[in-house]
């Protein structure tokens, strides 16, 4: 990219790229400060400007080709510490290569790399002028496939589906997903053997593959057909063509498992803010076409349009009659082909071909024999240096020189420095700066929400739990400062000081994605993390920035760790308490209710999104004034004594579960941060489920096929049911504030929206 020609906002995920490049810059002020503190150290190898880092990146690409984000980071760090001991250089290379570790199901890079890798790929396409394509893949009907496998297992084992452990079915769906993911990269690698292929799992049912050297339109079209062909053959071979779609059981074109994709030439991205939405649209169209083909049918208009387009761009001397005739021939031929396709696929499918082994055994045998081995060759990865892999690093295992409750990065850094010191290797300030930069990557951020990934949270919880005893030992219980801090927290003595965990579940992230697109929905997700959760913690008197950790677990699910206490800016101790935690919980709900009252266009403007006239018109047409108008894409069912009623819970809602953390991973190894956070998340999920039902019973839901208030009047059970919900929720809260929780639950909906145009009374 030439300086000044393209703004970061013109690059897909350009802010991620800018942030990454800036992290290497040692600005004039920082440089001056470090130079004064370390006059003997040479900082000249560290870049002073963003432009310099950009130039270095361009040179690396020119010499080594396109790289994964971790590989690129390693190259830059190695360049910026030319005089470092080889042991240190290898150590950093080890850290960075460990970040290339693939995720377990697909063998692709995990989501933490998604935005930066995408942004770098777009930057590469514009900077180098070389072809670069992005293959966006969306799987179909994962939920329906889980249900299908559960039924299949139950049938073969002679038990009810409910008796089959859901995880067993999910593992089979994962295996089917892995075959398709491996097949996609295998086909691309065979078509483009010389090119760099970087596959990333971007979501639960989404993949993205970055491919260099792919920009020619005919080549993209041919590859698109080949990939879909390979996918369809495997879906048939696995016997997964026909089971019902979880969300559309009456539409046979959506039956079965599968994946559809679209390939985007990255040099052609005009509007980064909406390109993913555009690609999702094409993928959705491809799913419709493939669904028809499985049934031996075609979308005639698509065939006509494709044929007409080709003819009109080709021989200009053809008469209108000739064109019409050729188009009609194409359609007739496509119909015959489609019937042949359906037959051929069924021939491969054990459900139709008795000569093939079907069932669970047949599925496993097919996948095992068909699995390509390409993925393992696409990128190198290694183990994190053993000294950093040690866990836990809290309590008696905390590295020497690290204060109790220190951040994860501080523990890693100190462990690394001890490791080097033991070998007689001293790092200068410049090298320590770069080592820290590498180590920060070991606690990666979720790029959508810009908070910690779950794996970092699990380790952090274990370490903070193990550190709590040492933290408390820092204070004299009899001192005035400690006594005042205990009184402020409403605690009787030091024994009551504990860390806390929160599970926060926001309802309707899917609706946000549908209404605003991924890019804008990410802004809302970040608002949830920073303004709603972190803001609520600050409001409750918890210094959130230094004394909490927030992780995003996908969708609208977050977890929060609150330290047992700390020392505030004035040097006074503070201790976490149930009162503070409860205040934070109430505030999260209050701030979520405020979000519902927020005008969507105003929100986007405040986030520096330029709201076009087209967007304003769209918001007006869709009745999207505030976030309370965001439609729930899922139709839910309430089974009443009058029969089933379908409803939707529009808007954004939050449920919060809380718990004191009372385990010590060193003393009780059977407990772990993972189990603790898993329990909290399950409770939050359960609460949000009850909240949806409760909102419906209170008349705050949109009835799908009728007039909401009129229908609601028919429910004799409504108030009894609501009371049961309140009792249930109160029971779940009892561990924290038994005497107040029921009252809080009764008041829980006071912030809900007034009636709106979507039928909420």
């Amino acid at each position, binding site marked *: 990219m030439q300086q000044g020609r393209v703004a970061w906002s013109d690059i897909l995920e350009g802010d991620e790229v800018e942030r990454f490049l800036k992290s290497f810059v040692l600005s004039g002020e920082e440089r001056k400060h470090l130079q004064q503190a370390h006059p003997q150290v040479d900082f000249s190898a560290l870049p002073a400007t963003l432009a310099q880092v950009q130039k270095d990146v361009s040179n690396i690409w020119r010499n080594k080709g396109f790289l994964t984000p971790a590989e690129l980071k390693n190259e830059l760090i190695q360049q910026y510490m030319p005089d470092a001991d080889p042991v240190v250089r290898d150590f950093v290379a080890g850290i960075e290569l460990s970040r290339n570790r693939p995720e377990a199901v697909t063998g692709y890079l995990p989501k933490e790399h998604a935005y930066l890798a995408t942004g770098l790929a777009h930057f590469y396409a514009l900077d180098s002028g070389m072809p670069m394509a992005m293959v966006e893949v969306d799987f179909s009907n994962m939920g329906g496939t889980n249900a299908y496998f559960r039924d299949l297992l139950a049938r073969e084992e002679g038990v009810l589906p409910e008796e089959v452990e859901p995880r067993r079915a999910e593992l089979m769906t994962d295996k089917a997903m892995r075959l398709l993911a491996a097949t996609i990269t295998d086909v691309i690698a065979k078509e483009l053997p010389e090119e760099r292929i970087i596959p990333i799992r971007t979501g639960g049912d989404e993949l993205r593959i970055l491919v260099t050297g792919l920009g020619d*339109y005919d*080549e993209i079209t041919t590859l698109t057909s080949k990939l879909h*062909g390979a996918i369809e053959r495997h879906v048939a071979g696995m016997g997964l063509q026909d089971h019902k779609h979880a969300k559309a059981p009456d539409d046979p074109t959506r039956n079965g498992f599968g994946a559809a994709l679209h390939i985007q030439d990255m040099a052609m991205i005009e509007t980064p*803010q909406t390109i993913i939405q555009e690609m999702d649209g094409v993928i959705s*169209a491809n799913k*419709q*076409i493939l669904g028809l083909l499985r049934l031996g049918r075609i979308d005639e208009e698509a065939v006509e349009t494709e044929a007409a387009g080709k003819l009109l761009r080709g021989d200009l001397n053809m008469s209108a009659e000739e064109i019409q005739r050729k188009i009609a021939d194409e359609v007739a031929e496509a119909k015959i*082909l489609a019937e042949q*396709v359906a037959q051929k696929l069924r021939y491969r499918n054990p459900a139709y071909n008795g000569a093939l082994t079907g069932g669970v055994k047949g599925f496993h045998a097919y996948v095992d024999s068909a699995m390509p081995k390409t993925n393992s060759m696409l990128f190198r990865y290694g183990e994190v240096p053993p000294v950093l892999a040690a866990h836990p690093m809290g309590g008696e295992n905390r590295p020497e020189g690290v204060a109790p409750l220190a951040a994860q990065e501080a523990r890693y850094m100190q462990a690394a420095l001890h490791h080097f010191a033991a070998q007689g290797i001293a790092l200068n300030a410049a090298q320590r700066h770069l080592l820290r930069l590498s180590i920060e990557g070991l606690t990666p951020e979720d790029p959508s929400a810009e908070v910690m990934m779950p794996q970092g949270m699990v380790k952090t919880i274990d370490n903070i739990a193990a550190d709590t005893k040492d933290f408390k030992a820092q204070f004299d219980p009899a001192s005035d400062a400690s006594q005042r801090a205990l009184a402020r927290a409403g605690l009787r003595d030091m024994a009551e000081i504990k860390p806390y965990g929160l599970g926060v579940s926001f309802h309707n992230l899917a609706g946000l994605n549908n209404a605003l697109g991924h890019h804008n929905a990410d802004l809302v997700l970040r608002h949830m993390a920073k303004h709603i959760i972190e803001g609520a913690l600050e409001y409750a008197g918890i210094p959130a920035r230094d004394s909490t950790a927030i992780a995003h677990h996908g969708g609208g699910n977050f977890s929060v760790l609150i330290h047992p206490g700390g020392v505030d800016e004035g040097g006074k101790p503070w201790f976490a308490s149930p009162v503070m935690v409860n205040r934070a919980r109430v505030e999260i709900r209050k701030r979520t209710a405020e979000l519902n009252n927020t005008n969507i266009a105003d929100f986007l403007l405040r986030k520096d999104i330029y709201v076009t006239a087209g967007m304003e018109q769209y*918001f007006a047409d869709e009745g999207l004034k505030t976030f309370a108008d965001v439609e729930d894409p899922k139709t839910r069912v309430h089974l009443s004594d009058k029969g089933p009623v379908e409803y939707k819970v529009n808007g954004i809602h939050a449920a919060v579960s809380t718990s004191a953390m009372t385990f010590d991973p060193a003393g009780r190894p059977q407990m772990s941060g993972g189990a603790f956070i898993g329990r909290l998340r399950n409770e939050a999920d359960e609460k949000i489920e009850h909240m949806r039902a409760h909102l419906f019973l209170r008349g705050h839901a949109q009835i799908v096929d009728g007039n909401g208030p009129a229908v609601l009047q028919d429910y004799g059970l409504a108030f009894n049911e609501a009371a049961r919900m309140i009792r249930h929720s109160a029971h779940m809260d009892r561990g924290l504030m038994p005497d107040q929780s029921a009252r809080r639950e009764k008041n829980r909906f006071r912030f809900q929206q007034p009636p709106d145009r979507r039928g909420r009374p």
Partner: protein
Amino acid sequence: MSEHNPAAAEQPAEIRAFLEAIGPRRLTPEEARQLNLLRLKHGLPAMSVTGVAALLADDEKE
């Protein structure tokens, strides 16, 4: 390594207008279908129905 197709250096105005009219949200299935038809009309990379069908109908092309 292939070269770019210079004829397709810009998004056709018809597609740009179509997407702008939809705004920043997920396309409905029918809008998605219409978008695909526009791509096919303008010769942008898209899945070819006949291409996939021919491939699947021919066992030799595995």
